[in-house]
């Protein structure tokens, strides 16, 4: 028994780390879904913008901290730009959800290929050695993983604080709950959407920076976190912002514990069977709230 617990611990720790990493992007997806009512695959493009900005800043000889700040600014800028230049046109015309999904997915794929075309598909590294790390319960966690876990939990808390204790946050919540009523109360939808995309861009940048520091950047690095985040919000549901985080942690644990329990070739079978089982048991997400938000 004692041996079993010891053998499962490294998988549990790494699963938790993966889950909390996925949770950051899931939070951004959830925020846009709840407020704007669209699944924004375009945050993959924002992730790339932030990741490549960090790499360019580092290549230009800027200190890493400065590079991170510029990368966050780039993430916010491109997220808002996506809304203003692309999505707003469709949202104003009340485009159905699937149109917005196709548009945002196209934006993401086009960005991936644009980056590959102008910069190459080569992977570039920001930190070119083993990252500082510590051994914990039979495995080694590096500083990027620990940062991602901390960012995930802090972001969750910060979103709650922002939404409940600031005028801008309250306006976003009002729009998320009932956009027509919010409009009637004098809240400008467009401004609320811009703020939502800005916050989502900020969150996605926080996910991209430690990821890129740990594994480097190429045009395709955003796809896996994006699609895992999508699975996480489906599992967790969107009733509250903590639900995608719970879903992401469960997904991360499923990915790692599947390898502990079975041969690793079953990893994806087990993990995605878990997604299906979760939806069969609770189609609205394990913790509730997957439903299409209304738009005026």
């Amino acid at each position, binding site marked *: 028994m004692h041996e079993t617990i010891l*053998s499962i611990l*490294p*998988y549990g720790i*790494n*699963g938790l780390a*993966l889950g909390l990493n*996925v949770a950051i992007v899931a939070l951004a997806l959830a925020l846009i879904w709840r407020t704007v009512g669209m699944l924004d695959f375009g945050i993959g493009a924002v992730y790339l913008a932030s990741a490549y900005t960090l790499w360019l800043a580092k290549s230009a000889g800027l200190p890493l901290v400065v590079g991170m700040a510029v990368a966050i600014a780039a993430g916010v800028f491109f997220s808002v730009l996506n809304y203003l230049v692309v999505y707003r046109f469709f949202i104003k015309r009340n485009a159905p959800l699937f149109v917005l999904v196709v548009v945002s997915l196209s934006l993401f*794929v086009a960005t*991936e*290929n644009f980056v*590959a075309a102008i910069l*190459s*598909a*080569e*992977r*570039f*590294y920001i930190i*070119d*050695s*083993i*990252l500082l*790390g510590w051994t914990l319960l039979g*495995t*080694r966690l*590096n500083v990027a993983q620990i940062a991602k876990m901390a960012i995930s939990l802090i972001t969750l808390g910060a979103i709650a604080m922002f939404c409940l204790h600031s005028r801008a946050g309250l306006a976003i919540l009002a729009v998320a709950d009932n956009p027509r009523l919010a409009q009637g109360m004098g809240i400008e939808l467009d401004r609320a959407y811009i703020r939502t995309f800005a916050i989502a861009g900020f969150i996605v940048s926080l996910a991209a920076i430690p990821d890129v520091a740990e*594994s*480097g950047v*190429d*045009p*395709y*690095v955003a*796809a*896996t*976190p994006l699609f*895992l985040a999508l699975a996480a919000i489906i599992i967790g549901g969107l009733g509250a912002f903590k639900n995608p985080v719970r879903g992401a942690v469960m997904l991360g644990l499923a*990915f*790692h514990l*599947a*390898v*502990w329990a079975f*041969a*690793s*070739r079953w*990893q*994806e079978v087990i993990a995605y069977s878990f997604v299906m089982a979760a939806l069969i048991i609770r189609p609205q997400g394990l913790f509730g709230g997957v439903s299409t938000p209304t738009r005026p």
Partner: protein
Amino acid sequence: MSKRRYWASAALAVAALAFGQPASAADEIAFGICQSTSSGSAKFATALWKGAEIAIHEANAAGGVEGRKVVLVPMDIGNTDPAQARLSMRKAIQVNKIVSLLCWGTNVMVQNGPMIDEEGILAFTTAQGVNITKKSKLTQQLDAVTTFYCRVAVAWIRQRHPEVKTFGVLYVNYEYGLELRDMCEAEFGKHGIKMVAAEGHPNAPPDLRAQFTKIMQAKPDAVFLASIGGGTVAQAIRTGRELGYEGIFMTHGAGDIPDIYNLKVAEKNFFYAGHAVPETAPKAVFESAKEYGGFVGAGYDFAWIDMMLARELIKEGKPVTGANMAAKLRALGTVQTPINKFTFLEDGKTIRPMAIFTIANGEKKLEKILGDEELK
């Protein structure tokens, strides 16, 4: 502009977009090269294209092949998707009139083998699956098959790391990775090196920590990375080192990309078997291979061999068709390009030089070239 003319122009523009490039003119000779948007393949797809482009620019600048201009046609195979590849290949054959193509992906080549024969196209492949050439009479390996890669790796291990008695395999969980795993188990086993762990991963894994934790529990002296390439090989090396694995990493052509040259942690206890682009190669190819990886040489060889075959056929007064090129290639048997010496066998298999590389100072370092005699 009148409305009618506007719509006519728009229709023409759409048609031009839909058909990509116009059909080759009658005096042109067209070759197709697969291109991909998937994370692993996109990297060596670019290298293949660059290499072929160099060979074709050289030839066209010198007046073409017996006065005929040579053109390259890209064929998009998406995420190494056999169905997408079939559509692109058919379009390239029927619209662009290609006579030869270069593609990869064990599934892509196996599933489209019958179509290649039906259309009479000479196909070269850099896919390493041993069964590919059984599905098509007109397909010829340009790369070594999986068995050779494992054989070369174990030979190097025996020579340089005789202390290795056990090994593990981290493989991509589809036909090609499974084949490489099994072939390496057999080839290493012949030398008494036992496979003690084998863990699979999806094409784009979120991380490899779980797989590597499990491999490390078996305490292998070395780990063979049977991944597709792209970021996965780099990710595997980094993960292994992060988790404290100090043994030897080895891989096949998947390691022959700049992602790996740039990887500091690959500078110790790592080697890969890949394509040699010697200093005697044309300067443009040698320089381009530094930037895009060893598959530049394969792209160059493909175009060079195709143009040589076309030239021979024209001189003999025969039409330049895929079937005629395949017959000529196998009749010649041995071909020396400006880079490599190939022996093309009747069954579609090929004996070609391979090389062992390590990484040093942000560049690949050639350790040894293995010629056809050694490989036999």
